[in-house]
């Protein structure tokens, strides 16, 4: 049983790799059905954010446990420019790039837990969890 997997995200093919590994790890965490697709989709969004805004970063997938409940933790981190206004970045339809601006708010809706920490000039870390039902 793999407890942790790291994916370097720097090319668009890495988005596909990250979400495929995410699906596998989510299955290991005991998630099933549409939750596997939901997790893979959320990972795809945060991975694309890394490529679009930070150029390079990594996604760490790990199995996690809380109150006896199993889950998958996804940490997406980069050392990119950081997000000036996180509240604004979390609004549907807001984008400084060419996207639909649904990446971060969409990923938050897909996952059970979602935290984002960002510092201008230092980078962004998104931590998300999905629990087994």
């Amino acid at each position: 049983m793999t407890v942790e997997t790291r994916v370097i995200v720097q090319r668009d093919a890495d988005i596909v790799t990250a979400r495929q590994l995410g699906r596998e790890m989510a299955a290991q965490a005991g998630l099933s059905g549409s939750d596997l697709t939901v997790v893979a989709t959320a990972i795809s969004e945060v991975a694309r954010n890394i490529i679009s805004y930070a150029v390079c970063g990594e996604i760490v997938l790990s199995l996690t446990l809380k109150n006896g409940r199993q889950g998958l933790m996804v940490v997406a981190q980069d050392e990119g420019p950081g997000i000036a206004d996180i509240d604004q970045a979390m609004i549907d339809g807001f984008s400084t790039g060419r996207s639909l601006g649904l990446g971060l708010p969409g990923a938050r809706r897909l996952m059970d837990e979602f935290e984002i920490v960002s510092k201008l000039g230092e980078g962004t870390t998104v931590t998300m969890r999905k629990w087994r039902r």
Partner: protein
Amino acid sequence: MSVPILKQGDVLIASIQSALTDRDLLDFKEELGQKVGRFRSRGVIIDVTALDVLDSFATRTLRNIAAAARLRGAATVVVGIQPDVAIAIVQLGLTLEGVATALDLEEGLELLREAQATKASDGVSSL
């Protein structure tokens, strides 16, 4: 990874076989656009049965493909969206607004036939 595009009468059928990168999706959009012109197609079917994820980029690209094809006189139908994928698209907050969808290839072809029949009689396509 390129997407095979088959010509069947005045309809193009593109069957996505495996996960596509963003680059693959953009190449697919280009190629489909060229083929609509070369084959004077009236309809396009994009089969996404094999896709286990349709994220915001893929969804936006499908919308753009359909919008561009419509401007050139071809109606697009996306078929085969898996039930789990449909759930994730909705939760993500996305819609395939402006893109016709059908359960599978057969239903998609039927939808195109109906739209062409309506266009022939009323002069306006329903797709």
